[in-house]
Structure formats: structure tokens, C-alpha cells
């Protein structure tokens, strides 16, 4: 167990591509930190640098107060779980899990004991003498974790360990990972592209984009006060809705109505000019459900033609369009793929922006009908359209 400190760590590949730029991150002893971002954001490269599988081009990496830049992976005392598990196919589960210990010259009886203990934790006891080829995906995944925990290393590194599992198993293993980490109390760095995984697992989440760290914080912090458009768009599912807005006459003019800036805390609003407004789906509500005193106190009421309603039982998602020229931002462009996959914004047309609202299941909003909706403007996020930074 040890803290891990990255100080302006940079990775430049031979072809000149900068995969990770000046990454600084302090990970406390026993902390569970998630590196999250879309594919190609450098999160895996960062993890592999910590593991020692990639050289560090510049900057300093410390594990437990020792600079380990030039140490080979075997001398860093860290365990890693690979995305594809990387189990040794010619060894049994027992041998796989005991491999590190046997390399370290631990005696046979102790290896057996530790492997048995780990196997018990992971419910693998009856599979110890089988080969990886004969295990199911979930079992292989557990063996990969078992191989890491028998060693009692300084830190666990996990490279998208759940991405090869089916959806149901993934949720189950996610809980398993969280339980394991809190039981063992070992520092863990976990890489994923799945923001749900990041939000549910981590003590702290570090969001990366194009090799640059965007924001580090607790899941709540990232959710409630994203530092820029990218983080705002990446964290949360369904994703935050963005719309262009303009500030004039002391008001924020949104396509759905004008808002008094006084309703929003901690705002340093320019007196004039364009901004980008973000509203999370749950900040919308069916106007009929919202109590009158709340409506009087804050928010805007507007009418919308509902394109589609998805009822999940606990929630109701309503999709509608607003007339808008769209939000142009490099940071959001990076997210387009993710957002399309998530919202399935197929019916996107020129000059319109699709908005998702998460309503109470009791709402009477129906498809292809006009509905009166209320937006909680106290939870409005505003961003600078040029830099993408939070205002």
C-alpha cells in the first residue's frame, strides 16, 4: 500500500504523438481513483506508464515516495489486471494466481495458502485446477483479479477490466470490484471509458481528453460542477443538454425562455455576449407536476412538441426539439460519438437541437403531443463558448 504521485508526466510516442500531456495527479494511500475518458484520451497509456510497461517521456512518477521512472515493472510491486485478462493459457487457475509468488521465491505451502484464500474471496475454489480456456468470461475475469490480489501489491492497476463482460455480469462485477477494494484497502487505479462505471466506483474520478487531464474530483463534484463543456457532456447519462444562449439586458436568453442570473449561485456572468447553457435531463419536469410555489420561485416554463417518450417505470424520458443553430465546440465534438450512442439522436435535423428530459413517471406527457415543461434554472450550467470553461 502506497501513495502514487504523478508529476507532469508526459508520454510522447516515437512517431511524435503526444498521448499524455503533463499529467499531475496525487493518489493517496488506499484511494480508489478512476481514469475516465473516451477512447484515445491517453488513460490507458497513463496507466501503463504507472505499471512500467511504457517509458515516461518526461515528468516524474513516485510510488510510495520513491521515484520509479526507470524501474522495470517487476521492481515496482504493482499488480495489473488487463482488459483481455492475459491469463497464462498453459497454467491452471492455481498456477496463474500463484505465478507472481513463485517468481518471487515464496515457498510452496505459503503460495498454496494465499491462492486458496484469494480463491475463496473470489469464489474460485472449485475451479483452481482448471485451465483458463475452460472458464467462462466472468470466471476468467475473477482469475485475473485473483492473480493481482494474492500478491498484496502496493497498488492495483485495472485497465478496463469489465469491458469484455456482458452487461449484466458487468454490473455484478462492478460491485465485486468495489467491495474488494474496500476490503483490501489497497490503492487502486482503474481505467474505463464508461462514465457510469467511473461514477459508481471511484473515490475520485479523473476525466481525461486528448491526453490532458480535464478535472479531478469526487463523482458528485464532477456531476454538479463540471469545469468545462467536455466534462459536463461526458459525465451523466443521459448526457447534459446543451443549447446556445445569449446574455443581454441582465438576463440569460435561452431558446426556451429568459432566465434571471440571480437564480444561479456562483455565477460570474459577462454583461453581454454568447454563452453555452447546459441543463441536465433531470432538471426538467412536467410543469403540471411542479408545485406552484416552486414555479413562482424559479425556473422557466415552456411548451415543446414531444417527439418520443421512453418509460422506464422509475423514470420517463421525453425527447423534444428546440430551434437552435446548435452549439459549436471542439470539446463537444469529441463527445459526439458517445452522445449518439447514448441518446440515439437519429432524428437530428439542421437548425434543431435534440433535448432529453427526465420526468416523473406520473407525468402525462405523451408522444406527438404538445406539452408544458418546466426547467429548473437554479441547476443551469453556463460555459464560455470559446474556451468551454465553466462560467
Amino acid at each position, binding site marked *: 500500500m502506497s501513495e502514487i504521485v504523478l508529476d507532469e508526466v508526459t508520454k510522447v510516442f516515437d512517431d511524435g504523438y503526444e498521448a499524455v500531456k503533463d499529467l499531475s495527479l496525487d493518489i493517496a494511500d488506499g484511494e480508489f481513483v478512476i481514469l475516465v475518458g473516451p477512447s484515445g484520451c491517453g488513460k490507458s497509456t497513463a496507466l501503463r506508464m504507472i505499471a512500467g510497461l511504457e517509458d515516461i517521456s518526461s515528468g516524474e512518477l513516485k510510488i510510495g515516495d520513491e521515484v520509479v521512472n526507470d524501474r522495470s*515493472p517487476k521492481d515496482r510491486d504493482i499488480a495489473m489486471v488487463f482488459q*483481455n485478462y492475459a491469463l497464462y*493459457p498453459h497454467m491452471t487457475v492455481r498456477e496463474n494466481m500463484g505465478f*507472481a509468488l513463485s517468481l518471487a521465491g515464496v515457498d510452496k505451502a505459503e503460495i498454496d495458502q494465499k491462492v486458496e484464500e484469494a480463491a475463496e474471496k473470489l469464489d474460485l475454489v472449485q475451479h483452481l485446477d482448471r485451465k483458463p480456456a475452460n472458464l467462462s468470461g466472468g470466471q*476468467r475475469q475473477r482469475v485475473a483479479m485473483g492473480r493481482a490480489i494474492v500478491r498484496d501489491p502496493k497498488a492495483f492497476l485495472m485497465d478496463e477490466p469489465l469491458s469484455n463482460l456482458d452487461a449484466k455480469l458487468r454490473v455484478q462485477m462492478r460491485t465485486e470490484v468495489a467491495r474488494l477494494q474496500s476490503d483490501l484497502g489497497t490503492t487502486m487505479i482503474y481505467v474505463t471509458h464508461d462514465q457510469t462505471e467511473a461514477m459508481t466506483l471511484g473515490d475520485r474520478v479523473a476525466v481525461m481528453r486528448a491526453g490532458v487531464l480535464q478535472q479531478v474530483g469526487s463523482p458528485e463534484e464532477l456531476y454538479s460542477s463540471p469545469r468545462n463543456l467536455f466534462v459536463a457532456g461526458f459525465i451523466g447519462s443521459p448526457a447534459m443538454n446543451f443549447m446556445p444562449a445569449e446574455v443581454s439586458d441582465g438576463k440569460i436568453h435561452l431558446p426556451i425562455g429568459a432566465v434571471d442570473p440571480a437564480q444561479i449561485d456562483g455565477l460570474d456572468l459577462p454583461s453581454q455576449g454568447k454563452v453555452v447553457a447546459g441543463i441536465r435531463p433531470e432538471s426538467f419536469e412536467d410543469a403540471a407536476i411542479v408545485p406552484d410555489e416552486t414555479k413562482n420561485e424559479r425556473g422557466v416554463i415552456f411548451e415543446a412538441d414531444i417527439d418520443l417518450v421512453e418509460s422506464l417505470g422509475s423514470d420517463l424520458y421525453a425527447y423534444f426539439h428546440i430551434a437552435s443553430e446548435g452549439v459549436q465546440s471542439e470539446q463537444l465534438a469529441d463527445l459526439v460519438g458517445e452522445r449518439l450512442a447514448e441518446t440515439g439522436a437519429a432524428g437530428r435535423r439542421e437548425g434543431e437541437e435534440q433535448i432529453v428530459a427526465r420526468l416523473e413517471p406520473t407525468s402525462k406527457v405523451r408522444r406527438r403531443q404538445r406539452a408544458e415543461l418546466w426547467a429548473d434554472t437554479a441547476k443551469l450550467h453556463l460555459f464560455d463558448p470559446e474556451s468551454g470553461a465553466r462560467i
Partner: protein
Amino acid sequence: MKVGAREYSLWTIAIAIVLIFALVPVLWLLSISLKPPSEITDGRIIPAHFSLENYKSLFEGGWSDSPFLHPLVNSIVIALITTAVAIILASFTAYAIARLEFPGKRAILAGALAIAMFPPISTVGPLFDMWRAIGIYDTYLGLIIPYLTFSLPLAVYVLVAFFREIPWDLEQAAQVDGATPWQAFRKVILPLAAPGVFTAAILVFIFCWNDFVYAISLTSSDDSRTVPAALAFFTGESTFTEPTGSIAAAAIVVTIPIIVFVLIFQRRIVSGLTAGAVKG
């Protein structure tokens, strides 16, 4: 895939033709080797009388006088040494080529291919002179060196293909688990490449075992002459009889180790050994 009856019978005929083409000469050889010397030229496929006379003649006289025993031992020793050395060197080379980035990597592969394609006969003359000059003419070493030259590229090619198949991640997992590069190679990579290693070993062994050109040119006595060359020096009962029977018997005997070698290692060449290593 469902195979139609018509297609099925066509394939059966095609396979039968190939089998007949390949196996009839061997059967003929076997038949000749089992005939008594007086009936060898009778032209029958199935011998009228079976006799082990020809086989006996091979080993008659024991270690000192048998025309076959020395060459047989030479063949075995030379082929085994060459195979062992070639496999060790080739697995290091192939590993480096498959895993490491270094300048001249392509040149090494291209060079290896060029050497493997080189007609052996063109090197025989120079080798003959060189070996006599440095004193390894008619020695084991004198044969092992050219055999290595030709079999190494072959082994490297086969092994590179196998090493490339092994997921990179496995080796990195081993490194993170605390293995030195050598440990990772020996305990993870090599066991997984075993089918490739055995394939390469069989190919190298067969190449050495079958070679005639070097064996006949670079040896002058039974001290190092291998079987293919020794067969050419067999003598008949008298000056006027061809040693057909004993050559046939010797040919059958030298075939046996190859068959045994392939059968033993064939079991080891199991495909899918790496199944389950990584999700795929």
C-alpha cells in the same frame, strides 16, 4: 458446411490419386526389401517369398564391418545436434524479430529468406576447399555447419510466425507479475510457442536427415558419412550384382525415424493451445 455427395466423391477420388501417387513407390520399395536377392527382379508387387535377408545384410559384421551401422549413427547424431542448436538459436532470433524494434530487422528476415533459397550445390565447391583447409572435412562439424546455415532461416521463419501469434499482453502480465525478460520468455512465451518449436524441430530434423548433396561431398569415410550418402557406396554380392535389395532395405530403415519423429511430435502440435488466454 454441408458437402454434396457429388463433391464428396470427387474429393475422395482426388485424395485417393494423391495417396496412390505418394505411397506406391514406398510400397514397391518395401516389397523389394522383403524379397530374397534372387527374386528381386521378378517384377511382382507382392513378393513370392518373404525374406529378411536384405535387412540382415545391412547389419552383418556388426559395428566394425556393417556398411550401414556407422552412417545410421552419424545421421542420428548429426541431425539431433543440428536440430537442437538450430532451435535454440532460432527461438532467440525469432523472439527478437517478433517482439523488438531494432534497425535491420527486415534485412535479417530478407537475408534469412535469401539464404534458405540459395541452391546448396553452389556452395559445395567452396565448402569442400575451405573445410579441407581448416581441417573439418569429413567431420560431424563439417556437416553441421552447412546444415545449420540452411535450416536456421527455415526455423526462424516458422518461429516468428508462432511468436507473433502470442498476445503481447501475456508477456507484459508476466513482467508485472515480477518476471525478468528471460523468465517471461522461458515460462510464458516458450511453452505457448511449443507447437511452433516442435514444427520447426521436425522440419530441421528432416532437412538434415534427407540431405544428400553435402553428405556426399563433404565426407570421405564412414566416420561422418550419413545414410543417404552411404547408400551410394553400397556394394553388391559381386562386382556384377546391383545392391538393390540392401539399398531398398536401408531406405525403409531410414524412413522409420522420420515417421516416429513426426508421430511423437504431431501430438504436441496441438492447435488452440493458446485458446482462453485472452478474450477473443
